[in-house]
C-alpha cells in the first residue's frame, strides 16, 4: 500500500512542480499563439509517403504550404484545435506545432515512431551508437523530479543502464533474471510497485534510469541544451520509465518481498487446501453452494483460525452455506496446522487470502 502511495505522491509532486515551474518558460506576453492545423498520418501511410519521389525533407511545412495537398490525398485526419489533439493520450502520429520561433526541421530519419510507443518497446541500440560504458556500471541515484531545470546527465551514464548483465548482481535468482521482458512489463500482472525510495537494494538489481528511454530524445538533448519540449518529454519519459520499471521489477523479481505468487505457488496452495477439503459429509444442497472464505495468515504460513470468515455464498441457502463453511474452515485449519508451503518472502502477498470453494465438480464424482 505504501508503494502505491509513494508513486502517486511522486507523480503528483512532479505535476505540481511542473505547473509551478512552467511560468519560468512562459513566452513573452506580446507573442501571440498561432494555432497550426495538424495532419495525422498513420505509420503505414507515412511509410507510403516516404517512397514518393517528391517527398520533402520536412515532415510538415507552414499551414499554407501547397504540399499539404499531398497529405490530403492520402486521407489525413485534420484536427482543428489543440485540445482535440491533446485528448489523444496515445498519439499514433507525429505532430508539428507552429511555434513562435522558426520551426525546427526534424529529419525524417529520426522521429518517425510515436513517442509513447517507442518507450514501451525495449529496443537495444545499435552497437555503433552505444557510448563507451563507464568502468563502474553502478548508475547514480539521480532525482527524477528536479526542483529546477537542470541539464540532463551525461550520455554515457544515461545509456550505461542498457547493459543489464553488468548491472545485475550475481546473487539475483537466475529464474527471475531470465524472465522475458514482455512478461515482466505487464502492468496488470503486478500487485505492488517497488520504488527505489522503499527498496534501496533495487538499484543493485535494476538500472535507475529507464531501459527504454527514447534514444531520439537523448540525441536531441545533446543538440539543444535547455529546450523546453525536451525537458517535458524527458520528465514524462522519466516518470513513465519509473512506473514501468517499478512494475516490471515487481513481476520479474518474483522472489522479492511483495511480489505476486507464481502460478506454481498458487497451485501448490490450492492442492494443499484441496487435499483437506472433504466434502464427503456435505448435504446435496451444500454441494451446490459456492462459498468465499477469507483468512488471515501468520508469517509462519499458518492460518489465524479466528480470522476465518464466510464472505459470501451463492447457489444455496444460508444453512447450506454454513455447513459448507464448516467443511472449508476445517480444511484450512487442518492442512495449515503445520504451515502451508508458501514463500515467506512474499508474505505481503498472501497475508490475507480469499478462497472460493466451488464444489461443482465434486458433485458429480
Amino acid at each position, binding site marked *: 500500500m505504501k508503494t502505491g502511495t509513494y508513486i502517486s505522491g511522486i507523480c503528483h509532486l512532479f505535476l505540481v512542480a511542473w505547473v509551478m515551474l512552467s511560468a519560468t518558460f512562459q513566452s513573452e506576453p506580446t507573442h501571440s499563439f498561432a494555432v497550426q492545423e495538424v495532419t495525422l498520418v498513420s505509420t503505414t501511410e507515412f511509410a507510403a509517403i516516404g517512397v514518393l519521389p517528391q517527398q520533402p525533407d520536412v515532415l510538415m511545412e507552414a499551414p499554407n504550404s501547397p504540399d499539404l495537398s499531398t497529405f490530403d490525398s492520402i486521407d489525413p485526419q485534420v484536427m482543428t484545435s489543440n485540445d482535440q489533439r491533446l485528448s489523444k493520450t496515445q498519439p499514433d502520429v507525429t505532430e508539428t506545432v507552429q511555434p513562435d520561433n522558426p520551426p525546427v526541421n526534424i529529419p525524417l530519419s529520426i522521429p518517425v515512431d510515436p513517442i509513447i510507443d517507442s518507450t514501451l518497446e525495449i529496443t537495444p541500440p545499435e552497437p555503433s551508437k552505444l557510448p563507451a560504458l563507464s568502468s563502474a556500471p553502478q548508475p547514480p541515484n539521480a532525482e527524477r523530479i528536479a526542483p529546477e531545470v537542470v541539464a540532463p546527465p551525461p550520455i554515457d551514464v544515461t545509456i550505461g543502464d542498457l547493459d543489464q548483465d553488468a548491472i545485475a548482481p550475481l546473487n539475483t535468482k537466475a529464474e527471475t533474471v531470465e524472465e522475458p521482458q514482455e512478461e515482466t512489463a505487464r502492468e496488470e500482472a503486478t500487485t505492488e510497485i517497488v520504488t527505489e525510495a522503499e527498496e534501496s537494494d533495487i538499484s543493485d538489481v535494476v538500472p535507475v534510469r529507464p531501459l527504454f528511454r527514447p534514444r531520439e530524445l537523448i540525441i536531441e538533448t545533446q543538440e539543444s541544451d535547455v529546450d523546453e519540449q525536451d525537458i517535458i518529454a524527458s520528465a514524462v519519459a522519466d516518470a513513465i520509465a519509473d512506473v514501468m520499471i517499478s512494475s516490471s521489477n515487481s513481476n520479474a523479481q518474483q522472489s522479492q518481498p511483495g511480489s505476486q505468487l507464481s502460478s506454481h505457488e498458487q497451485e501448490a496452495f490450492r492442492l494443499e487446501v484441496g487435499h483437506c477439503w472433504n466434502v464427503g459429509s456435505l448435504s446435496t444442497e451444500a454441494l451446490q453452494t459456492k462459498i468465499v472464505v477469507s483468512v488471515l495468515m501468520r508469517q509462519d504460513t499458518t492460518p489465524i483460525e479466528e480470522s476465518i470468515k464466510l464472505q459470501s455464498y451463492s447457489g444455496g441457502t444460508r444453512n447450506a452455506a454454513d455447513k459448507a463453511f464448516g467443511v472449508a474452515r476445517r480444511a484450512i485449519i487442518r492442512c495449515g496446522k503445520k504451515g502451508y508451503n508458501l514463500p515467506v518472502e512474499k508474505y505481503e502477498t498472501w497475508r490475507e487470502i*480469499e478462497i*472460493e470453494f466451488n464444489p461443482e465438480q465434486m458433485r458429480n464424482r
Partner: protein
Amino acid sequence: MRVSFFFAIATLLPLQLINVSAALAQSSPLRIEITQGVIEPLPFAIPNFIAENTVSNEYPQNISRVIANDLTGTGLFREIPETAFISQVRDFSASVQFADWKAINAQALITGTVAISGDNLVVQFRLFDVFANSELGQGLQFTGPISTWRRMAHKVADSVYSRITGEGGYFDSRIVFVSETGAKGQRQKRLAIMDYDGENVSYLTDAETLVLVPRFSPDGDRILYTSYATGNPRIHELYLNSSQSRVLEQSTGTMSFSPRFAPDGQTVIYSLEQGGNTDIYSLNLDNGEVRRLTSGPSIDTAPSFSPDGSRIVFESDRSGGQQLYVMSVTGEQVQRISFGEGRYGTPVWSPRGDLIAFSKQNRGRFHIGVMRVDGSEERLLTASFLDESPTWAPNGRVIMFARETRGELGRFSLYTVDISGRNLKQVLTPAGASDPSWSALQK
C-alpha cells in the same frame, strides 16, 4: 507553452491511473479458487457416554455403540477407535481439550451422559466441532422408557448427522417388508417390521396368506398391503397400534394391488385390474369415493405421489415398452419422462421432491436408478441379477431396495445405497426380505 502543459497532463494522467490501479491491486487479498477436494468419511470420536447415578454401564456403552454404528453406516463418517484417544471425557460439563482431539484428527466429538430417572432413561449429548474449538449446536436431552434406549440412541445420531451434514436424519425410522422363508417356489411370506438398521424385527401377519408390497402411511401408524386371503389380490389397510386390518377394495371380478398413500394419509391410489385391463384409481378413505385416473388398454400401475400431492408418477406400457409417466392428481396432463433403453418400473417419488427412484431391466440385468422429475439426469446406482422395489429414506438421501441372488438357493435381501451410488450395504435380516417400505421419522 500551453501545448506542453496539456501534453504533460495528457501523458501523466494515465500514469496516475496506473499508480492507482497498482495500489488497489496491492491492497486486495490474494484470491484462490478451489474446485477439487476429497470425498472421505468424516472422522469423529465418541467416548462412551458417562453413566450417572444408578444406571449400569451397559446402557451408556450400548447407546454409544448404536450412535457410532448409525453414523458410520451412512458411509459419511468414520469412527476413531477409543485406543487412539489421548484424553478421556470424564465430566460432561468440563471443557473439552480440543488440542487432544485435533491431534488424532477427530473433526467431530460426541460426548454424553446416561441417567435413570424413575422408570425412564435420560440421555444427554453434546457435539463439538473440534477444529472450530466450539460446540456445534446446543446440548440435547432425550427421555423415554428404558426399553426404548435404541430409539434414543438413534435420535442422538439423527441430531449429529443433521448438524454436520445439513440434511435430516433417518435413523429413528422403521422398515416394513415381506419376510420370506422356504425354498424358491414354495416361499412363505409374512409382513414384518423392524428398525431401519434391521433390529427389533416383529411380524405383522402369519405365513398362511400370501402378502405383497406393504406401504407405510405418512404418519407411520398404518400399512397398506396386498393380500391373497380371498384368493384374489386385495388391498388391505393394517393399523399398527391395534393390529386390525380391513379390505379397501373388493369389487367382484377385479384384482387390486400396488397401493400407496397420498401425502395427506387419507387418499389411497392403487391399480385395479378389470377385464384384462389395468388402470390407476384413487380411493378417499374418509368417504369411500373412488376415482378412475387412467383409462385405456395399457397396463398402468405402480403409482406414487409427489410430496406435495399434486402429481403422480406411474409405469405404463402404453407406448409399447414399460416406461415412466407423470400425471396430475386428477389424471390429466400425462407426460412420459423415461425414454431410455430397457423397461422402467416401480417409480417412487423422493420425499424431497427432486428425484424419482425406479427399477430398470436392461440387457438381462436389473438396476436401481434415479432421475429428475422431468426424466433428465438418469443415473443407475446398482446392477445385479435382480434389483427391485426401491424405497426412499425419510431424508431423501438413501434408497433401500430388494436384491435377489441367482440360482435355486437364491434369496431376497435388503440393501441400501446412497443416491450418489456409494456405500452400498446389506441390511441384515433374520430371513429373506423383499418389498421394503421406509417410514417417515418417528415422532
